[in-house]
C-alpha cells in the first residue's frame, strides 16, 4: 500500500509541475507579463501536492494502525486487553499472522483477530489513499487557478522553502524531544507504574548497592527491591572513567602543549594525523584490542607480580578508553591554547620567562577554563562510551574501587538488558531506559557546563 501511495505521489508531483509551468508558459505567450518564472509556478504546484500528501500519510498511517489494533484486540477477553504485557504479545502475534509470517496451529480467537486487523487495515489504507489523492488534486487545481501574470509564485514558493528549512533545523529539536520523551516516559513507568512487577522505589534505585536485574525477572516473591541498586553501576562507570582520564588527561594535555607551543610546522604535519587516525578508530576495534590484547597482558603482568587480576579488569577497559579520548582532549586543548593571545606570552617572555615558565604560569592558567571544559567533554564521552566496556569490562556489578577487579558500567547494563529478546513492559526492560535517562542526564549536565565555560572563555578573548 505504501508503494502505491508513493507512486501516486510521484506521478501527481510530476504532473503538477508540468501542468502549472505549461499553463504559465501558455499565459506568457499570449503576452501577459509574468511576475515569476514558469518554473516557480511549477515548484509551487509541487509543494501544494507533496506537503499535504506527506502530512496525510505521516499522520494517518499510525492512526490506522492503532485503530486496527484496538479493534482486533476486542476479540480477546478483557483481562488480556488490560494487561499491557499480554496485550502486547497478542498484538505481535496478530500482526505476524496478518502479514503471513506465522505458520502452525493458530487459535480461532487469534485468527478472527487477525482477520479483523487485516480488514481494518485495508479499509484504513484505502481511506488514506483516497484522502491523499483528493488533497493532491485539490492542490493541483488550486495551483492552476493561481497561475496569473501578477501572481507572485516565487515569493510564495520561497516561503514554503523557508518553512521546509525551518523544519529541517527543527529535526534536531525533535530528536532531543524524542530522546527525552521516550527515555523519560519509560523511566517514569519504571518507578511509578503499578502494573509493573518488581519495580523499585526511586530511593532504592538511587542508593541501592546491589544490581541484579536477572534475579528480579524470576522473583515474584521475596525481597526483590535490592535488585535494582544503581550505586555499583555508577562506581564502576566512574572507576573506568577515572582510569581513562588518568591516561588521557596528562597524555592529551602534554601532547597538546607540545603541538601548540613547541612543535615545528613539520612536526605538526606528522603528529596531527597520528592523533586524527587514533580519533577515527571505531570503538568496536578498540574494544577488540582491549579484550584480546591489553587485558591478557595486564593479567599476565599482574600474575607475575603476584596480584589477583580479573580477566575483565577495569584497568584494561580504562586504559583503552584513555587511548580513545587522548585525541579528543588534545585537539580541544590545542584549540584553547591557540586562543590565548600572543600578547600574554610576549608579556611573560619580556620578563625573562623561559618557554616552559610562560606555558606553565601564563598560558595554562589563562587557558584553564577551556581545558577544564575539554576534560569535562572527554569525561562525558568516556561515561557514554559503550563498545569498549561491553567487550572489555564485565557484567558483574561489583561495588569496588580496585582497578584490577571486574566492574560493570551503565552502558554495559543497558546493552545487556536490551540486546536479544525482551518484553517491552517488564521492569527489567524499563530499567534499561531508566539507566539511559541517567546517562543522558549526566552527560547533558557535563556538556552544558562545559559548553558554557567555553563560551564565557571565548568572550573573554574575542
Amino acid at each position, binding site marked *: 500500500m505504501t508503494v502505491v501511495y508513493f507512486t501516486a505521489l510521484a506521478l501527481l508531483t510530476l504532473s503538477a509541475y508540468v501542468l502549472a509551468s505549461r499553463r504559465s508558459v501558455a499565459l506568457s505567450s499570449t503576452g501577459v507579463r509574468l511576475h515569476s518564472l514558469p518554473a516557480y509556478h511549477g515548484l509551487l504546484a509541487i509543494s501544494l501536492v507533496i506537503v499535504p500528501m506527506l502530512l496525510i500519510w505521516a499522520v494517518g498511517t499510525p492512526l490506522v494502525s492503532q485503530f486496527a489494533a484496538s479493534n482486533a484486540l476486542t476479540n480477546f477477553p478483557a483481562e488480556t486487553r488490560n494487561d499491557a504485557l499480554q496485550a502486547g504479545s497478542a498484538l505481535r502475534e496478530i500482526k505476524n499472522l496478518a502479514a503471513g509470517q506465522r505458520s502452525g496451529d493458530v487459535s480461532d480467537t487469534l485468527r478472527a483477530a487477525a482477520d479483523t486487523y487485516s480488514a481494518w487495515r485495508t479499509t484504513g489504507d484505502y481511506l488514506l489513499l483516497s484522502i491523499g489523492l483528493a488533497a493532491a488534486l485539490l492542490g493541483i487545481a488550486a495551483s492552476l487557478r493561481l497561475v496569473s501574470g501578477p501572481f507572485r509564485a516565487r515569493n510564495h514558493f520561497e516561503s514554503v522553502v523557508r518553512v521546509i528549512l525551518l523544519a529541517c533545523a527543527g529535526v534536531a529539536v525533535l530528536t532531543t524531544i524524542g530522546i527525552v520523551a521516550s527515555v523519560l516516559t519509560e523511566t517514569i513507568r519504571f518507578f511509578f507504574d503499578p502494573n509493573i512487577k518488581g519495580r523499585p522505589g526511586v530511593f532504592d534505585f538511587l542508593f541501592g548497592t546491589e544490581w541484579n536485574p536477572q534475579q528480579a525477572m524470576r522473583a515474584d516473591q521475596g525481597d526483590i527491591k535490592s535488585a535494582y541498586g544503581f550505586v555499583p553501576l555508577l562506581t564502576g562507570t566512574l572507576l573506568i572513567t577515572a582510569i581513562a582520564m588518568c591516561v588521557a588527561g596528562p597524555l592529551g594535555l602534554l601532547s597538546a602543549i607540545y603541538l601548540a607551543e613547541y612543535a615545528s610546522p613539520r612536526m605538526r604535519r606528522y603528529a596531527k594525523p597520528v592523533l586524527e587516525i587514533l580519533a577515527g578508530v571505531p570503538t568496536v576495534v578498540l574494544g577488540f584490542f582491549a579484550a584480546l590484547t591489553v587485558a591478557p597482558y595486564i593479567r599476565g603482568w599482574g600474575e607475575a607480580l603476584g596480584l589477583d587480576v580479573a580477566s575483565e579488569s577495569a584497568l584494561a577497559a580504562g586504559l583503552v578508553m584513555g587511548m580513545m579520548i587522548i585525541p579528543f582532549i588534545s585537539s580541544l586543548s590545542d584549540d584553547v591554547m591557540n586562543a590565548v593571545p600572543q600578547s600574554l606570552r610576549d608579556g611573560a617572555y619580556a620578563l*625573562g620567562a623561559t618557554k616552559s615558565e610562560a606555558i606553565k604560569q601564563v598560558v595554562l592558567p589563562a587557558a584553564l577554563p577551556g581545558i577544564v571544559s575539554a576534560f569535562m567533554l572527554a569525561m562525558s564521552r568516556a561515561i557514554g562510551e559503550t563498545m569498549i566496556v561491553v567487550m572489555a569490562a564485565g557484567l558483574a556489578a561489583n561495588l569496588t574501587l580496585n582497578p584490577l577487579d571486574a566492574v560493570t558500567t551503565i552502558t554495559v547494563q543497558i546493552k545487556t538488558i536490551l540486546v536479544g529478546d525482551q518484553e517491552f513492559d517488564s521492569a527489567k526492560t524499563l530499567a534499561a531506559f531508566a539507566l539511559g535517562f541517567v546517562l543522558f542526564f549526566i552527560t547533558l549536565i557535563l556538556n552544558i557546563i562545559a559548553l558554557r565555560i567555553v563560551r564565557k572563555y571565548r568572550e573573554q578573548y574575542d
Partner: protein
Amino acid sequence: MENSTVDLSAIERVEAARTAHLTAGAKPAKVLARDVNVYYGDKHALKAVNVEIPDRGVMAFIGPSGCGKSTFLRCINRMNDTIASCRVTGKITIDDQDIYDRSLDVVQLRARVGMVFQKPNPFPKSIYENVAYGPRIHGLTANKAEMDDVVQSSLEKAALWNEVKDRLQDSGTGLSGGQQQRLCIARAIAVNPDIILMDEPCSALDPIATAKVETLIDELRSNFCIIIVTHSMQQAARVSQRTAFFHLGTLVEEDSTKTIFSNPKDQRTQDYITGRFG
C-alpha cells in the same frame, strides 16, 4: 630557550663591565647598535641601523607606521626570536656585551631589559601575582616579606599603589586600561631592569590615562634607561630627551629631542614633524 647551553661567564662579564663603567663614572652608551638589519622572510624590514642610546633618560623612536621603529625596539630584548621567519644581522650591545652572541642567555637578557607593550597585557591573575611573577621566576626575593616589599615598591614606582593597595588580590584584567598599562609597567620594574622598552604604551589609552603614564615615564627616567616607540610627536616631545626618526626601515636622524623638533638636519624629518606625511 633556543640556546639551551648557557655560558654563564658571559653574564658575569656583562656584570663586570657594567660595574667597571659605573665606578669609572663615565657616561657610556648603554645600548649600541651597529649595522643592524632585520628580515621577515624575504622582506627587508630594517636597513643598516646605527645608534647609541645613553644610560638614564628617555629615548623616543618616531616615524610613520611600518617604518621599523617597533621592529628595532624588539631587537633590543630579542623578542623577535619568537617570530620564526625573523632574521637579525649586525651587532647590538648592551654594556659592551653583544646580545646576539650565541653564548648569551636570552632569558637573562630579558630580565635586564623590561618591556611594556602597545596593548596592556596583564596576566589573568591577581594584581599582586602579576607584579610578583618576574621576581619569582628569577628568584629575586627570599621570602614573602621581601616579595611584599618588591610588589609595593614596584606599584609605588608605577604610581598605582594608592589605587590598588586595598585590592591586590583582585584580577589584573579587572582594572581600567590605564591602570592595566601601569600595572604592566610595575610588572616590568619589579625585575629591576636597566632598560625599559615601551612599544607605543599609550596608544590604547584615553587622554587622562595617557597623562598619568607619561608622568610616570618622566618619574622613572632618573632610574632607568627608557626607550619608547611612539606615533605621537607631541608625546615624544613631552617625555623624551633624545629622539630618533625612522623612515622606510632606515634610521634617518638621531639627536636631542630639542634639536629634532626645532632644527632637524634631514628634509624627511622636517617633512614628518611638520605633518607633510605620516
